[in-house]
């Protein structure tokens, strides 16, 4: 079995699938997370082996920072 950890949630899945397939299996979007195994970043096509524990890291940020995009002048 493999274990996926994401924002306090945990899932156990069968070993032998790619990281991308595992992410999809638990209902997450592969474009929105990165996969870390044993403290190392791994690519989506990495096959997860029995006993692997991977941490998924969310990459989406938003909110206030993006207000800077309404450019033109600093105080409209």
């Amino acid at each position, binding site marked *: 079995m493999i274990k996926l950890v994401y924002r306090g949630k945990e899932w156990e899945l069968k070993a032998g699938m790619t990281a991308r397939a595992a992410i999809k299996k638990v209902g997450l979007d592969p474009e929105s997370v990165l996969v870390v195994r044993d403290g190392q*970043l791994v690519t989506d096509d990495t096959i997860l082996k029995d006993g692997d524990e991977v941490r998924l890291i969310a990459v989406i940020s938003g909110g206030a920072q993006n207000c800077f995009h309404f450019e033109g002048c600093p105080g409209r």
Partner: protein
Amino acid sequence: MRQHRLALCGEHFTEWFISRTQRAIERYGMFGPEDRVLVAVSGGKDSLALWDVLLRLGYDVEGLYINLAIADQQYSEESKARVEQFASERSGADFQIVDVKKTYGKSVLELARERRGREVCSLCGLVKRHIMNRVACERGFAALATGHNLDDEAAVLFQNVLRWQTGYLARQAPVLPSTHPRLARKAKPFFRFYERETAAYALLQGTDYIYEECPHSKGATTILYKELLNRLETRSRGAKQQFYLSFLKTRREEGLFSGPREKLDLGECENCGQPTTAPALCAFCRLWGMS
């Protein structure tokens, strides 16, 4: 990186990331090796990655951290700690802090409570834009650099298209020239990177960035748009890149959004002197009730 049909090891990804940033800076004339550049840093992955890359490339950069007193100061303290740690680990990583509450008397959240009906994110953006521009102009920086990535740009483009905001569509760009003596030149050297790539770069460098999102950004529309675009990207590799980069190309080649309605008529705020489209006070000074 499915959109590039490319998979790299950590070492080569780092090299690729740095050289691609340099190419973007040169190709879009963002700033030069002799220029002093102010980098807006929040403690998040994008801004710390940008600071790191610009230092490695040898640019004359200085960080600017704006303390917004978010979540009763706790979130801001945590993000400031990441900035301080980053700076302590690198030679020449100097930075300045502007504390909004100490400087102006109120935090952004206190302002938002007073101004019911205005979203915190909107106020926060306004305050940050004003301060970043003020510091860049007052201290004579040639450019203000921010860590906006392609996902940020695509989400804003999506929003502007949904609303057909032609003025914003005319001005959204990787580099914004200074069109007024008190308007800083702005550059986004990461505008071609997906958000996953900037996060991967930060992780590979061992940068301790703040993972948690700003507590006020929950439910923000930009996050919804990013999620929608990511779903599209998952189904159609390169969709985000195509959406944003083709917009820039088509606008340039076909002269879209270049009519008189899209031109900004900038005056100066009667209080602070910063450029504004408003007749008397800029939005920032109106916000604080200045006169």
